[in-house]
């Protein structure tokens, strides 16, 4: 199905109270936009809005100043109702230079608010952004609310007492802008002040200068005479169920899920990985939590990382490795070794734009086929996918449970969007998480390495250091009976069938597929997996509100698929599958259930917009109506 976008009904900034708002902070990659956005998100969460954030940054760490390819942005969608995406279009754009303006203006709604640092609109910067005339003066921004302030000048005067020098003073620009936006939405500055104090604990003058800039930006909003139509906006608090909440990114949720999994399984975790965007942060997070049953290892390459994880599993810990597409390719042989020797292993793939180096900081779902099939030999492996940043926590625990219970590698699919995006999370009660303690085998009598659980088909886990259980395993085909090397033809057939049956059997140990929005029968089912959840949810919700019989199904277990999925999909007249690839999951659904599902595909390095999925729903719905 062709990808088209429908503009959603927007809440304009004419009113004093708005239901939801999308704000995007954009500037040079060295301008501190991520820090600005993170602090605004924190204040917004504490204010009581629901929210979703989307950091969107270039691969270049410090691109040339003023370049369009160096623009780093942080987008936040917040409001009074449930928010599951970072928003289709912008209500407020904070542009720290001409490049940030030119690359983001197209996404601003008519009548939207632009806050710019006019001090950065120099001839040089305008040229770098390919502006022939200054947009602040040539009338091209007439359709928008424009707040043009010489932020550079304001900051220099605000931080002057701290004696930082010109360059360091200007680095507080982002925090000044943050102060202004906080005024605009009536956010509390205290948490930001606290976090600045912590961040610059060793440099009190920098901390104080930033705090002064924050307050000055806020005071500017309060005191300056602003153009008509720019005032403080009230965004009502969201109605959410009672509990304790925090903001969390997918990366942190995933790392904490792995820690929780090791606690619940009572198995040590050895996390081995090699730096790669956007997966490195899982290692950075885990390395600071070694007080738990966690050990970490930065390997010399991706292959060594998966192999160290397999070695750790052989030794009785749970080996976990994590990477992104190109790195996962290199791990394939190690994964197959773990499958052949029947050892637990978790492989986390934070997918990014491919092939090859592709777009390292941009999101995609194009490793689905690799996760399911990307190995030599007949090597089926369980595959699970997280659908939201907070879902990463539960999915990581599930991966630990499946890997240790079935003695198999498990592939956990995340992506660049989930890794970096954040949302509020109702913190679960740790006591309520079901434990699944894993016992290593110790029985000497009758031991052989080929012993297996009759129900799960999992091989015994006998770890080195256990007296009397000395044994050898490896990548060579093993006898079903003894575990010794075997080239027997019938045995190979039996072992191949066994490996497949073991993975297939997991389908009896996972929940049946549910419908996450709408009825379990109807005209159209929109079926997603992974990070498409948020956009599908909003689109289906809006379509339902229009009276359409549309349901949303989000599949977490990609291999094996839930037992009832085929039956469930057959309850609908049509099935629409949006994916951030050219159509990978859809081929599985079509071949597995012989369903004439239709795909909606986007490979732009950006998540789906709600309006894109809504347009596809409308189009398919119209086709269904005209057919009937």
């Amino acid at each position, binding site marked *: 199905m062709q990808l088209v976008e429908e503009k959603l009904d927007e809440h304009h900034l004419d009113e004093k109270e708005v239901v939801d708002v999308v704000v995007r902070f954009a500037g040079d990659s060295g301008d501190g936009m991520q820090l600005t956005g993170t602090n605004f998100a924190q204040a917004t969460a504490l204010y009581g809005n629901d929210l979703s954030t989307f950091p969107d940054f270039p691969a270049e760490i410090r691109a040339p100043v003023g370049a369009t390819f160096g623009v780093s942005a942080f987008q936040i969608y917040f409001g009074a109702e449930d928010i599951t995406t970072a928003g289709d279009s912008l209500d407020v754009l904070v542009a720290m230079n001409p490049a940030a303006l030119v690359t983001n203006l197209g996404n601003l709604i008519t009548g939207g608010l632009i806050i710019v640092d006019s001090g950065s609109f120099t001839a040089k910067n305008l040229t770098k952004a390919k502006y022939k005339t200054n947009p602040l003066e040539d009338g091209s921004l007439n359709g928008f609310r424009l707040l043009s302030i010489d932020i550079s000048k304001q900051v220099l005067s605000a931080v002057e007492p701290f004696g930082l020098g010109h360059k360091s003073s200007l680095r507080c620009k982002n925090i000044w802008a943050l102060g202004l936006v906080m005024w605009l939405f009536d956010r509390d500055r205290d948490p930001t002040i606290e976090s600045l104090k912590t961040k610059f604990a060793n440099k009190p003058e920098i901390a104080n200068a930033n705090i002064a800039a924050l307050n000055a930006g806020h005071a500017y909003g309060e005191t300056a005479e602003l153009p008509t139509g720019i005032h403080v906006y009230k965004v009502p608090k969201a109605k959410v169920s*009672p509990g304790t909440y*925090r903001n969390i990114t997918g990366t942190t949720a995933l790392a904490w899920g792995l820690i929780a999994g090791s606690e619940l399984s009572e198995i040590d975790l*050895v996390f081995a990985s090699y730096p790669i965007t956007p997966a490195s942060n899982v290692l950075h997070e885990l390395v600071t939590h070694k007080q738990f049953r966690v050990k970490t290892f930065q390997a010399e390459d991706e292959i*060594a990382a998966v*192999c160290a994880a397999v*070695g*750790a599993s052989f030794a009785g810990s749970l080996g976990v490795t994590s990477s992104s597409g190109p790195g996962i390719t290199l791990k394939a042989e190690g994964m197959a070794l773990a499958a052949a020797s029947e050892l637990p292993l978790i492989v986390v793939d934070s997918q990014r734009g491919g092939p090859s180096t592709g777009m390292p900081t941009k999101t995609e779902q194009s490793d689905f086929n690799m996760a399911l099939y990307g190995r030599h030999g007949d090597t089926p492996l369980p595959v699970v996918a997280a659908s939201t940043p907070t879902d990463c926590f539960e999915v990581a625990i599930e991966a630990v449970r499946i890997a240790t219970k079935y003695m198999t590698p498990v592939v956990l699919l995340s992506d660049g969007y989930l890794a970096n995006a954040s949302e509020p999370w109702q913190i679960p009660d*740790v006591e309520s998480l079901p434990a699944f303690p894993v016992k290593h085998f110790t029985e000497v009598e009758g031991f052989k390495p080929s012993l297996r659980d009759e129900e799960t088909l999992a091989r015994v886990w006998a770890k080195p250091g256990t007296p009397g259980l*000395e044994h050898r395993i490896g990548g060579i085909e093993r006898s079903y009976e003894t575990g010794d090397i075997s080239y027997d033809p019938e045995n190979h057939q039996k072992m191949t069938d066994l490996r497949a049956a073991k993975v297939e059997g997991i389908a009896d140990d996972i929940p049946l597929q549910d419908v996450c929005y709408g009825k379990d029968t109807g005209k159209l089912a929109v079926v997603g997996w992974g990070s498409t959840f948020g956009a599908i949810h909003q689109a289906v919700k809006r379509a339902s509100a229009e009276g359409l019989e549309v349901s949303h199904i989000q599949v977490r277990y990609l291999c094996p698929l839930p037992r009832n999925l085929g039956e469930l999909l057959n309850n609908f007249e049509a099935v629409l599958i949006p994916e951030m690839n050219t159509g990978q999951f859809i081929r599985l659904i079509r071949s597995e259930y012989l369903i004439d599902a239709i795909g909606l595909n986007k490979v732009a390095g950006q998540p789906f917009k709600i309006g894109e999925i809504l347009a596809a729903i409308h189009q398919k719905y119209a086709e269904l109506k005209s057919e009937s």
Partner: protein
Amino acid sequence: MNKPLSTLTLKDFASDQEVRWCPGCGDYAILKTMQKLMPELNRPKENQVFISGIGCSSRFPYYMNTYGFHTIHGRAPAIATGVKLANPELDVWVITGDGDGFSIGGNHILHVIRRNVDLQILLFNNQTYGLTKGQYSPTSELGTRSPSSPEGSTDSPLSPCHVAFGSGGTFVARSIDTEARHLSATVKKAHAHQGAAFIEILQNCPIYNDGIFEQVKDKKLAPDFRVEIEHGQPIVFGQDNEKAIYLNRETLSLEIITTAGNEEKVLVHDETNKSQGQLLAAMSGPDLPVAVGVLYRAERPSFTEESERQLGKARSTSASLQALLHSGHTWDVK
């Protein structure tokens, strides 16, 4: 339960698997030496773990009645690192060959040595790819004729011991497959070493590279082509120790001198001297004898020790999952 340590013999370390190397392969001798040495190490049998990659030598773990993992080509050092990381109590042995360790697995071998992971690496160097039927390997002499180099190989060989030196190795040694006593003593020292202990074992492949090390192995030839080095001892060789090694300080090179009358000039082996170890490692025929023994040994904290120390520090603080989930900014909704 296993038998008491003091009663273990060679037989306790031989597995029930039929050994499948070619008749006359040097690997048989190494296996026997290792099985015989195991009881002497006086370490629990269940703590011995042999990790190998792919190749003839990598079948080794199947024949040891210990824990063993026959893994994938070149990756044994990485897998062994994971094993040691998971359980530092284990005695980890990496069994590899010249192709496995220095071609496909070259990256891992240099990093396991660089990190100084506390394990032993036994490199079976037969200068050929035996299991794939005799192609030239990264240690084959220039011009080696093989199925993949019928006109002679065009790539120069690397020196495994020098790779170990270059990687910051803290224990670099060389021995010979059939010299049971020497090999056993060298392995024992490697086992006692804290850190990555690397031993190059010159090993004969009777099928594809027969006699490649004949000069250093043959009873008659060896005294003139091989020198056994021992810490603190003068480096002498020949049928009656009539020849000695001399360090020419002008050219920074080793030379052969006659022992008689030159006693003062004879180089005394100092295994803590890295430069000297590298010079000795480089000696090769026909001009100089091949040195066997411990070329270099240094005390440096091992990766295992250091990571355990950091872990111990981290684990001295309390670990509450509940507290972790509630760390940082949180808010309550009533």
